[in-house]
């Protein structure tokens, strides 16, 4: 699923490891989300959106829409 995680993370000068620690997941999981290989669960998606202060639908979007 398309997402803005990498964009938002780099805008805030955060390393993948820092974001991973804040979310309670591994650095590889953040990397997989950014590379759109892994779609996070709804709780993690909401946690990421809250962390960056953006709506979930702004952070994650369907490719076709």
């Amino acid at each position, binding site marked *: 699923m398309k997402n803005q995680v990498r964009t938002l993370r780099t805008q805030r000068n955060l390393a993948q490891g820092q974001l991973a620690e804040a979310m*309670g*997941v*591994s650095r*590889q*999981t953040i990397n*997989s989300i950014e590379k759109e290989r*892994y779609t*996070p*669960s709804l709780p*993690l998606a909401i946690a990421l959106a809250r962390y960056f202060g953006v709506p979930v639908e702004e952070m994650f979007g369907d490719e076709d829409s």
Partner: protein
Amino acid sequence: MTRIRSRAITRSKWFMPLFCLALGVVMLAAFWLGGQLGVGLFSLAALAGFGLFFLLAGRSETIRGLAGAGRDERFAQIDLRATAVSGLALLVTLIVTWLVQIAEGHSGHPYDWLLAVGGLAYLLAVVFFRWLS
């Protein structure tokens, strides 16, 4: 609460090493009862070594995930898929072996009841998880 506590236990870095050790002790006891103390001691040593490997392994995500400490929702999904694949491989092996046994004129035991257990477990799991969700 219990689920959270059990998750915390399985995500401890000590879970897999201690599990390996416990399994080794159980295997030692089983082999000992069967009169094969040497094989039992070898099994215990092998599993203790395996547990030590998990405890001292580096920062590999795969090892940390298997050991429990590096397990997050993505690794839990990987684990679930891997479990499904291994279950499928086991069922296919059992079906093929059972068919070969039947074709060779044997009774098909014990593969028939192992297949029955597998099929029944799958059906019960479907019913349970459907009820749960």
